[in-house]
């Protein structure tokens, strides 16, 4: 009897491992920054090079920080959704223009539309490193006290918005 049971059990375990393993997304590394204060930065704005912006300027608001660049192909993918959210969600979106050329970035926004309340320039990618950015686009949900609550790696999707971000926004704004 065990002669048949043992291979069956081994097979079942293998299937179990594969079932879980094949659904994991190894490219999405959990961020240690979740529920930690967003790293402080003071960066110049994209459209107003004379003015600076930092996390503290958004105190009291629940907002999104979206890391984007004109060279980033996947940013095009999430762009329509960002436009829609900017119009309808009431959640301000701040852009972190990551390792980009100012004129390219401005042109990109003029061409496809600007969903951002404002964008800041991280030409060297240092602020990106502070936020643990490794794959543009990335989006962070930051609460009223400047604490990171959620991180989306890769393009923002409607699914992620509805299942993860929107419920959090509601909870944090309450």
């Amino acid at each position, binding site marked *: 009897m065990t002669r048949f049971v043992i291979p069956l059990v081994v097979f079942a375990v293998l299937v179990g491992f594969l079932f879980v393993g094949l659904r994991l997304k190894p490219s999405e590394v959990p961020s*240690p920054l979740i529920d930690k204060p967003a790293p402080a930065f003071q960066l110049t704005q994209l459209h107003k090079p004379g003015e600076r912006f930092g996390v503290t300027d958004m105190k009291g608001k629940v907002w999104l920080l979206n890391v984007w660049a004109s060279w980033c192909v996947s940013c095009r993918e999430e762009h329509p959704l960002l436009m829609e959210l900017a119009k309808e969600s009431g959640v301000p979106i701040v852009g972190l223009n990551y390792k980009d050329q100012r004129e390219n970035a401005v042109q990109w926004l003029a061409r496809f539309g600007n969903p951002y309340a404002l964008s800041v320039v991280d030409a060297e*990618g240092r602020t990106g490193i502070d936020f643990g950015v*490794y794959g543009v686009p990335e989006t962070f949900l930051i609460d009223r006290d400047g604490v990171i609550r959620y991180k989306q790696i890769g393009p923002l999707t409607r699914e992620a918005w509805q299942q993860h971000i929107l419920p959090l926004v509601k909870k944090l704004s309450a």
Partner: protein
Amino acid sequence: MRHVLLALLLALAWASVPAREAPPAAADPALEARLHKLSTELRCLVCQNETLADSRADLANDLRREIRDMMKAGKSDREITEFLVARYGDFVLYRPPVKSTTLLLWGGPFALLALGIVIWFVLLRRRARRVEAAPLTAEEQRLAAALLDSDPARKTP
């Protein structure tokens, strides 16, 4: 012939003039060596099976620059590693620390080895018992001997 020889000699003389040394890749080779050593222990987030030292990804370049700056500022390897772990998590380390979440990772192979040894042991014992368990009875012995003797090929000369 003489001209050819002369030309050859001249060519050889030219070749023996030492080439100008290539400019060093960085101002401080000791620092670069330290950077390389540390970055072979760190994982590149973009191409996850490459070390930070090997990766040509943009982010890897930036991170090496960041590490180099920190080294110049007198930070220890430990402080630099902590800087990266705070931003990217334990995943950047090729040698993750032993924690409750990494216990399976560290202990798993040993647990499997122990399990294998136990199974092996049990199987060996079972097999030993099986061999012992079937001695021939006296009757069977006699029968076997008779059969062997009746075989014409085995007739003793």
